[in-house]
């Protein structure tokens, strides 16, 4: 039974690979191994656009966060772009954003001190200095202030 299932899984993996389910751009750190299988050789990675947009705790803002390093891999300092909209779906163009995060399971923060360095306009903000120094579950918390109101959002994601 186990053998049969394994064969099925391998076959399906081949089919999925052939259909571009997981490509180097989407899957994170993928390379081909000696058998033509796609294999993540990064030691911990995630697709740049893996995070679903989220609504802040009190529903004031909708926030998306996309890495400019694709895939996101460990041990490389890189930038992300944040996009912020209000509850009506309009871009929030004058936000102050503070950044925190780390690995709660390991009781440590980011190895760097990332911060928003530039307002790119149209509700986009440049977040520089992001770095992950190991695989596992990370969180990124953004405290967003605009028009006298503040709200926060936490993204949770895994580099594996």
């Amino acid at each position, binding site marked *: 039974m186990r053998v049969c299932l394994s064969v099925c899984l391998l076959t399906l993996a081949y089919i999925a690979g052939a259909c571009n389910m997981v490509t180097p751009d989407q899957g994170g750190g993928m390379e081909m191994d000696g058998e033509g299988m796609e294999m*993540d050789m990064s030691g911990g990675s995630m697709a740049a656009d893996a995070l679903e947009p989220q609504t802040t705790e009190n529903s004031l803002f909708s926030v998306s966060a996309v890495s400019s390093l694709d895939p996101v891999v460990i041990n490389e300092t890189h930038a992300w772009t944040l996009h912020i909209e209000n509850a009506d779906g309009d871009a929030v163009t004058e936000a102050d954003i503070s950044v925190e995060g780390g690995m709660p399971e390991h009781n440590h923060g980011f190895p760097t001190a990332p911060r928003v360095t530039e307002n790119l306009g149209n509700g986009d903000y440049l977040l520089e200095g992001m770095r992950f120094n190991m695989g596992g579950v990370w969180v990124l918390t953004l405290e967003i202030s605009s028009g006298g109101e503040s709200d926060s959002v936490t993204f949770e994601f895994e580099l594996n």
Partner: protein
Amino acid sequence: MRRIGLAVAAAVLLILVSGAALVLFGPFREGPAGVVRTFLGGGERSPAGGAHGWTAAERGLIASLSIDQLPPLAPDPSNAVGDDPAAVAFGHALFFDSGLSPDGTVSCSSCHVPELYFTDGKVRANVRGADTPRHTPTIVGIGYSDWYYWDGRKDSQWAQALAPQEAAIEHGGNRVAHTLYVLDNYRSQYEALFVRAPDLSDETRFPLNAAPVEDALLRAAWDEMTEADQNTVNHVFADIGKSIAAYSRRILPGRSRFDDYAAAAIANDQGRMGEIFSAEEAAGLRLFIGDGQCTDCHNGPLFTNGTFHNIGLPLPEGSSFDQGRSLGTLKVVDDAFNCLGAFSDAGEEDCVELRFIKMAGDELVGAFKVPGLRNVGNTAPYMHNGIFPDLDAVIRHYNHAPPAFPGHSDLVPLALTVEQSDALKAFLLTLSAAPDAPPELLQAPERGE
């Protein structure tokens, strides 16, 4: 359209069958909500099993440690001569030149001994009978680092190369003396690489010994100099460091037995794997990437994440607590020779690590740079304070993982059995290889080079 249809069908099937497989095949660490795990990232066991049976995810993790994944060393933007062959030759000469010490007894190679993988085999660095506070790290592959010294108080290899020259219990020299010495002995090499050598012959402006160091006489002499004259000296001194770095960044790690094993693992060639590793070494590797959690910090082809962690090390007898990174951060941002400083060749945008340095956080207290593990079997003793004489003692520490005080330890006790500890050690011993560098760079240069 058909491709998409097939892909969706395959995806649905894959998820269903993967779910069934997980129920059948045992525990699976759940990912966080909203994150889709790929099939290959799962916790399934290889159907083959055995010492060299690895899942695709495990083989990927093994591959991530291989030297084949190490990218070519990128240029150091702060060092314009970093990859210049003439600077390599010049730096090679300087690295072995004990003229860069007042008593003519100490060179960089006194502690970074090529035959000892560029370490010294001592508990703590010691050149004239006096211990420095810390153990000599290797320089093999260190050009890939973002931070230098155990506490990361320097942010380039060239800035690091300058500090021991002025440390009283290391080279014991000073920047004016070393600048004069180099311009006297290497003028043509210097001028071929840099600008025309400045005229430092006026001793009223350039005292023979002066530097901004702790020694009161040297500091007073330095403070007497004009800022412009100080900068003249600093420029040449920085050039000396940049040349030494051009040499030392060429000393790269070689291909170890582990790297051959990783290549066989990528190909999933169990026969070949069995020829390269014993079952015990493979068991050690399994612990290293699995239950040992070693790859949390010792990850990537150099077996280091390049950052700083407190692992609750015991203090050497009679020593006081070493703050480590929490002081290193303050020093590097203040360093005249850092990436953003006047003597760096980098633009501000190149200095990403310094611009986004983590300055605050409990985890910096008592934290030290994670050393790479290549050649670890050849570079005892271990840790920033040289507290452990052998790998058995290191593994014992990880097995017990005492709490840190002050600060917090990033370790959890591994509690490995004797057999597991032996296997882990056996694996670590497979990471050795002669440095990858032209043979002539692995010894003192012949005269007249």
